[in-house]
């Protein structure tokens, strides 16, 4: 059994402008020792989905299931969830400065976390805090434990956050854009640290990011989200080398990669859609170069793609065997699309700047 299994999660928020449908039916699972990467742009619902399962989105309308070791997190009482959060599920967020309280010493904040969940004495908790800071390689932990967050650099703050998240040996770590605010060199340190700790403690990690580069060498499985829906899920090799969904293909093509060296970057035209009035059918259809009549009205199911190798699934009406990104495959996709397109669907203008 998987450590965490999320099924058909839906989250919406009422706002004065209308109901924002942030997550519109997403399923995923992750097991101990494995890393699930969730990739998406702003507004794709990637953060909302994971925050909801740990109860950090009060006010949202939630449906679906999120079973953590068999218990449904979504129906769990607040106190029970509170005991679980921190102790069994650790979390780290993008901005390590605003995640730490500026008025309290770093060590005190880690101790508070430990003492909240266990009956350790102050002295024991402090000892544990020092051990943890050492574990995440903060130099001179016995001294730095009494520092305030502003005395730490960005990378050290994020390491302190990881220390706090791991204080109680959680089984699952949710890392929401953990390296986005950091320099590449520090990003490399943090990613290395997370992998080392995963190996050591057999933790399941959900790594949420907008950066396909960050998940390329750490994720076992990658889920691509767009406008609150899952677009494609695959093991990382399939996702990078044999992407099926045009959105995934578009994301990869718009990045400078060794494979498109010397070519002009191919951006995805247009803008991500509004979540108050998401497009009918496939949410990506207004930006998709391969749009067909069917895409405008019917949302494709998340089905096996490329033979379903290692659980490769994609939500797209294009033939499931066209997988990969190359000019030939582009031509094939266009060919299929043109044969299945009448005036109903109009492909976005490719030449737009």
């Amino acid at each position, binding site marked *: 059994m998987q450590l965490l299994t999320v099924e058909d999660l839906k989250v919406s928020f009422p706002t004065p402008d209308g109901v924002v449908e942030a997550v519109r039916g997403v399923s995923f699972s992750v097991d101990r020792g494995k890393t699930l990467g969730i990739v998406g*742009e702003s507004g794709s619902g990637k953060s909302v989905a994971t925050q909801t399962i740990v109860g950090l989105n009060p006010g949202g309308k939630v449906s679906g299931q999120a079973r953590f070791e068999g218990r449904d997190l979504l129906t769990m009482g607040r106190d029970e969830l509170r005991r679980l959060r921190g102790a069994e599920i650790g979390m780290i967020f993008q901005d390590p400065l605003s995640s730490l309280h500026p008025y309290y010493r770093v060590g005190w904040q880690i101790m508070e976390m430990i003492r909240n969940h266990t009956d350790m004495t102050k002295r024991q908790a402090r000892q544990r805090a020092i051990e943890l800071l050492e574990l995440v390689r903060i130099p001179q932990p016995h001294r730095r434990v009494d520092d305030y967050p502003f005395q730490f650099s960005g990378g050290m703050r994020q390491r302190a956050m990881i220390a706090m998240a791991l204080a109680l040996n959680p089984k699952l770590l949710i890392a929401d854009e953990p390296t986005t605010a950091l320099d*590449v060199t520090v*990003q490399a340190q943090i990613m290395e640290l997370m992998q080392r700790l995963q190996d050591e403690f057999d933790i399941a990690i959900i790594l949420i990011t907008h950066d396909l580069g960050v998940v*390329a060498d750490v994720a076992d499985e990658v889920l691509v989200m767009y406008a609150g829906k899952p677009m494609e899920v695959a093991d990382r090799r399939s996702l990078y080398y044999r992407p099926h969904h045009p959105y995934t293909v578009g994301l990869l093509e718009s990045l*400078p990669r060794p494979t498109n060296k010397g070519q002009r970057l191919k951006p995805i*035209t247009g803008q991500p859609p509004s979540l108050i009035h998401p497009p009918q059918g496939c949410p990506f259809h207004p930006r998709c170069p391969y749009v067909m009549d069917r895409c405008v009205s019917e949302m494709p199911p998340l089905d096996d793609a490329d033979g379903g190798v290692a659980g490769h699934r994609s939500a797209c009406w294009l033939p499931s065997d066209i997988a990969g990104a190359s000019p030939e495959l582009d031509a094939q996709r266009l060919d299929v699309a043109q044969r299945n397109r009448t005036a109903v669907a109009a492909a976005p203008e490719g030449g737009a700047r």
Partner: protein
Amino acid sequence: MSTETLLRLENVVKHFPVHSTRLLRRTEGVVHAVDGVDLDVRRGETVGLVGETGCGKSTLARCILRLYDLTSGRITFGDTDITELSRRKMRPHRKRMQMIFQDPYGSLNPRRRVGPIIGDPFAIQNVADGEERKRKVQELMELVGLNPEHYNRFPAEFSGGQRQRIGVARALALRPEVIVCDEPVSALDVSIQAQIINLLDDLQDEFGLTYIFIAHDLSIVERVSDRVAVMYLGKIVEFGPTEQIYNHPRHPYTKALLSAMPSADPDVAEARERIVLRGDVPSPIDPPSGCSFHPRCPKAQQHCVDVEPPLEVKFTDPPAHRAACHFPVGDGEVLAHATPELALDTEGDVL
């Protein structure tokens, strides 16, 4: 790209004084934000500036535009030494140089309509007014891929990518020769980044623009730059043609930066030699002696502590490629497991 030098920086230094507060034990000092930079930029090329937070790349950009006065050094733009020009004498030169900022939210006044925002440069420089100004603004909007009918909208009605286009239009208004792009795409979504990169590329071809392109995303810098300068603690530690810097880095810092670059390709990511640098960038208030990279360098020796290395050509590299290192990295040399012969100080943030 021509060989004409459009912009020349000679030993540019910018220090910011630090005043004493009760929290800082040090009573007074200076932040060595830019600490002796020589750089020449040719007409029509793109020079990329890379480095970690606090290395001085944005300060350097602001010095080039004379948004800061230099502590010392000299900046020549075309034939004119602009280092000491007064505000009034500087004004005619201002229209030749513009800037695009990182944050498309913070760099546009939310209470003003987009048309007037883009038209500001015309107003300031007294170039056009009334209907003519409006017509010029709408031309610019069209040029950068915005709908000219949105002239009267507010910034809030545009997405991040569209706002960055507004910033580009404003920078282009006076047909500048140089545009300094300070992290122009890092606040944008991946699918939108490429749109802006391509737009900048097209505009460069169309108007022969010269870009100084600052970014922390090394793969984007590689894609847009003709030459790349790597900065560390206020100094340029390596400078050269892009393919030289990326394929034959000589400075261990450059090598480490490149090795940390995320690659959206699992095979490349796995095969890569990963050099994880120890610790953080030291304080620019009190930079290390000799080569300022020595506390983090896997190849550091005593010589690096004592003597600051000059920026010079290494091995048989082309003369345009220079690095400031006593023990440059050879092609194919592996640094990941190198341990410095130098004993590290016990005080510092060294892992």
